[in-house]
């Protein structure tokens, strides 16, 4: 029996396919301007790569900001619900889950069954999400993936005064003019977003083990700043970007039993 979880994020669409409740295949596609079209495309590709057909799928659960735009989904769940379900599957001892995506950030405290005990979400402001780093990389004329490595080479801490991503862009430009190195600016950018995520995590309370998931977990510079700020290590599970989709797929499996 196959079940599918589909996580429609602001930037990417993640699909996880389960076979008898165990991970079988996964696929990541870009979320374009037309969400419904991108969803259809991602789903078709995912099934093709897994070598199964649509009617073999018993149940589909969608999550993510675009979860309502999945016409073939049987059920919609929130990102918080999907994340906690997914993280407990791969990290049974996880009690605090930090999810940083392109346009949202969230901190979730969950119990051993994957039930949500408390959570905090930022979906209003780019300053606490991946797009912040992306805007700044543009101002620095760097590729997004270069930001992380550069940040690790920083030699000093430069404070970032602006909170807003729009204002921070001008600040980055003036830092460049005042001959601050790109390495130091990159760290300053990651420190800024990390401090926003940390204040959200402190609101829900920190209980080990701590997991970091979502696309921004690939950014080693951000991870370093986050760990320094939290004064503790965080665990990044394999396929950290797919945890939400995995959680949705697990819920689909439970619903079809």
């Amino acid at each position, binding site marked *: 029996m196959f079940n599918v979880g589909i996580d429609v994020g*602001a930037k990417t669409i993640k699909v996880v396919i389960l076979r008898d409740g165990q991970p079988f295949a996964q696929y990541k596609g870009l979320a374009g*301007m*037309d969400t419904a079209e991108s969803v259809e495309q991602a789903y078709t590709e995912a099934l093709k790569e897994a070598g199964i057909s649509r009617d073999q799928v018993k149940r589909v659960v969608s999550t993510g900001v675009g979860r309502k735009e999945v016409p073939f989904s049987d059920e919609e769940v929130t990102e918080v619900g999907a994340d906690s379900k997914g993280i407990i599957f791969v990290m049974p001892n996880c009690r605090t889950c930090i999810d940083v995506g392109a*346009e949202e950030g969230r901190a979730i405290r969950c119990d051993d069954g994957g039930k949500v005990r408390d959570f905090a979400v930022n979906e*209003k*402001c*780019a*300053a606490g999400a991946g*797009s*912040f780093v992306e*805007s700044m990389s543009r101002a620095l004329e760097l590729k997004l993936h270069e930001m992380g490595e550069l940040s690790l080479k920083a030699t000093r801490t430069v404070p970032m005064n602006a*909170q*807003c*991503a*729009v*204002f921070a862009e001008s600040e980055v430009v*003036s830092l460049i*003019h005042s001959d601050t190195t790109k390495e130091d600016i990159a760290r300053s950018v990651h420190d800024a977003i990390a401090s926003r995520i940390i204040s959200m995590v402190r609101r829900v309370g920190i209980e080990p083990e701590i997991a970091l998931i979502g696309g921004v977990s690939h950014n080693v510079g951000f991870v370093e700043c986050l760990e320094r700020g939290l004064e503790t290590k965080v665990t990044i599970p394999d396929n950290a970007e797919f945890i939400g989709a995995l959680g949705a797929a697990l819920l689909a499996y439970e619903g079809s039993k």
Partner: protein
Amino acid sequence: MTQEYWRWKENNWKSADKDWTKAEIVTAGIDVGSVSSQAVILADGELYAYASMRTGSNSPDSALNAITAAMEGTGLTLDKIHYIVGTGYGRVNVPFAHKAITEIACHARGANFMGGNKVRTILDMGGQDCKGIHCDEKGKVLNFLMNDKCAAGTGRGMEVMADLLSVPIAEVGPMSLEVKEDPPPVSSTCVVFAKSEAMSLLKQGWPKNKVLAAYCSAMAHRVVTLLERIGVEKEFFITGGIAKNIGVVSRIEKELGIKAIKSEYDSQIAGALGAALFGKALVEKGGKKK
């Protein structure tokens, strides 16, 4: 080079019939904002000349640039001005100013001059911040609220949108009023997210004017929430660069259900004007003529 749609025109003005040489007290106010810098020169408390220029990366130069533009063609030099007051976020960096006063106090004083002593509520929409101010009949600040953390509801946010849609900033307001009925406001608060939202609206086939209407409504709503937190009195005046954007102003008036007081003066000079008025009062009080 590609056109920079956000770039508004720098300008200066000089009174045709007044003569500073006949004035007893000449004072100047310089408002170094995050986006624009204004200088206002008063001759015996009457508006004599002003200039509105773009702020550069360095506050002292921007201040000098503004006052130089205001003095252009007047024969005035810095040493002939009896008192200079600096204000705005770069106020401590105006080397030739005799004193620095906060922009909140200066805006209230300036609005009191521009809109008359009936003005009680002032909305100042600047380049990188937005303030709601309450003042008394003398233009003295009673209370204020300010957003300087977030680009939503500021001029910079509007500049970003103008650039995205390739619409010159001065045309944004009129263009947003071309729509027959206002579409629902852009739902994202954050300017970064509003940009993506605007892009997907364009993709759905919305014309530019409809997208601008949605953004102007969103901005109006945002500043109205700020104003409502401090309370709005009917005698209401708008200053700052966005006061020139009819698309935002008319939507604020509609949402509040009151009309803003009209003024013959340039809304952007309120801070510098207030600073120059403080300068005059200080000269009269202390006789501290140079």
